[in-house]
Structure formats: C-alpha cells, structure tokens
C-alpha cells in the first residue's frame, strides 16, 4: 500500500491486477484453449502480478501444455483457462495450438508414434 506509485502508461507494458483476474468469472478469452495447446511465457512480467499468475509464468518459462499447467498449479482446468486467457490478452504468454487438433495428424507422425511406443 505504501509503495511508490508507478507510472503506468502505454509504454509501461501490461498491467495485471492480482486476483481480480478471475474472481467470479467463469468465462474468458481462454475458454477455447485446447487442453493440449502449448503455452509459453513471453515478455517481462509486471511486478504486481498475482501469485498464481506469477507461478503460471514460471512454469511456462519452457513450453508447457494447458493441462500440465493445471496439474502444476493443482487448480481446476477451468480456472487455469481463465488465467491463461487473461495472461494472453496482456501479452504475457503465447499459445500455440496442438498441430493435430481439428485436423488429421499425418501418416508419418503416426508411424513415428508407433515406433516410439514400441521402443518404450
């Protein structure tokens, strides 16, 4: 509370209010995030990030699936999606859809999977 007020303008980068991120909401731009989409942290996290959001950015320093983020945070997928949607809206994570979702995986990939399974 007694912190020096920070200058926040267009150049200051994204501002994410702690906790206000998901409270009470069940819908967000994260709704359509596939469980196996990969998210990665990008940019500089603002100092006033909520603890869960900060944790997401930490676990997403290396690309990680949406489902794995939920497991790491031990939070329901729905809550994690809302937070991921907000972080994406603020330019703090990038999302790449699973290459195979919605389209058919190609033959070469499936053969690779079969061989990979055999080698397990």
């Amino acid at each position: 509370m007694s912190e020096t007020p920070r200058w926040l303008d267009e150049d200051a980068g994204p501002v994410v209010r702690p906790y206000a991120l998901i409270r009470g909401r069940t819908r967000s731009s994260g709704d359509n995030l596939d469980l196996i989409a990969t998210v990665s942290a990008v940019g500089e996290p603002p100092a006033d990030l909520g603890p869960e959001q900060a944790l997401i950015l930490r676990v997403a320093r290396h690309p990680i699936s949406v489902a794995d983020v939920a497991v790491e945070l031990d939070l329901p997928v729905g809550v994690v999606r809302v937070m991921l949607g907000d972080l994406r809206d603020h330019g703090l994570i990038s999302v790449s859809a699973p290459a195979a979702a919605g389209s058919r995986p190609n033959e070469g990939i499936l053969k690779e999977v079969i061989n990979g399974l055999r080698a397990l």
Partner: protein
Amino acid sequence: MDSVLSEDPVALKILIAGGFGVGKTTLVGSISEIKPLRTEEVLSDRGIGVDDLDGVEAKTTTTVAMDFGRITIREGLVVYLFGTPGQERFWFMWDELSYGALGAVVIADTRRLTDCFPSVDYFEQRGTPFVVAVNCFDGADQHSVDDVRIALDLDDGVPVMLCDVRRRASAKEVMITLVEHSLRTLTAAG
C-alpha cells in the same frame, strides 16, 4: 525458436474410457507417469441466462479428477493420455477431449460388459477411431474377446483384444494397436 529443425511441435491425445473400476487409471499408470487433472463439472444449469456482468454465476460445480498421462516420443512429439469416467454425466469432458483426438481405448470387463456400451456408442457416433481392450479380470480368455465383439456389435475393422492393464507390455500393445488402427482409418479415408 531459432532451432534449425523448426518443425512445429505436435501434441496428440488419446482417450481412455470405460465403466467404473474397469482399469482406466491402471492403464494410464502402466505406460506413463500419471497425474490427476482437476476439471469442474457443472451440476446445475441455473447459470444459463444469468447476466455475466455481475461477475457471479449461480453455477454449482464439483471437481472431477481425470487421469492424465504423457508419453514423450521425441522432442516436439508428445502423446497425452486422458482417462475419463464412462458415465454419460461426464460427457461434458468427452466432447472436448474427443475433438482432434487420435483415438480412444475402451476398456471392457466381461462381467459388466454393458458398462462400456455408452463409450462405444459415443466413439462410433463421433467417428473417433477406437479399440476395445478386454481387461483380464478373473481369467477372461480369447473366447471372451469373440463374445465381446458380438455383444458390442462392432464393425469388423474395430480391434478387440485381451489385455492386462497392470502389465506395461500389455498396456503398450493396446496403445500400439490403437495407433495402428487410427493410421488405417486415416489412410482409408484418403
């Protein structure tokens, strides 16, 4: 990503379905590290029509844990496994999971075969390639496999196999059979 091999990473998902206590969790655990993934089930639809602007919805939810496993084939190629309960009340998860899924394993227990009917119906209707794995509780045998095929009225192409989900080798065989079946389905579709 300034890697030379800048191929897009590929993530695939496979569903593990079947009735209560049929061996879903055991199967996922036999071939991958298993983690509980929490999802929320909406118990009532009272939230529908309630304006979002007040920020609170009158939805009642309960947490459902799914089995979640991951098999890394190589860097940039990962197969995710999702084990979900087979009862119809869990279909809210299935719709999402089956979207873009590589295929599904339906585990059957010959003593309670009807338990897997909803799963079989579901994947047939969605056009998701699936195999039926008969878990060998109490000495199920080849005879049971044939019975299962008839009882479930499966298309000829659908593989039915005996398995012991507690054994890694057996679990692997089931997964390989599924992916081979998906591959055949894919090539047949052109």
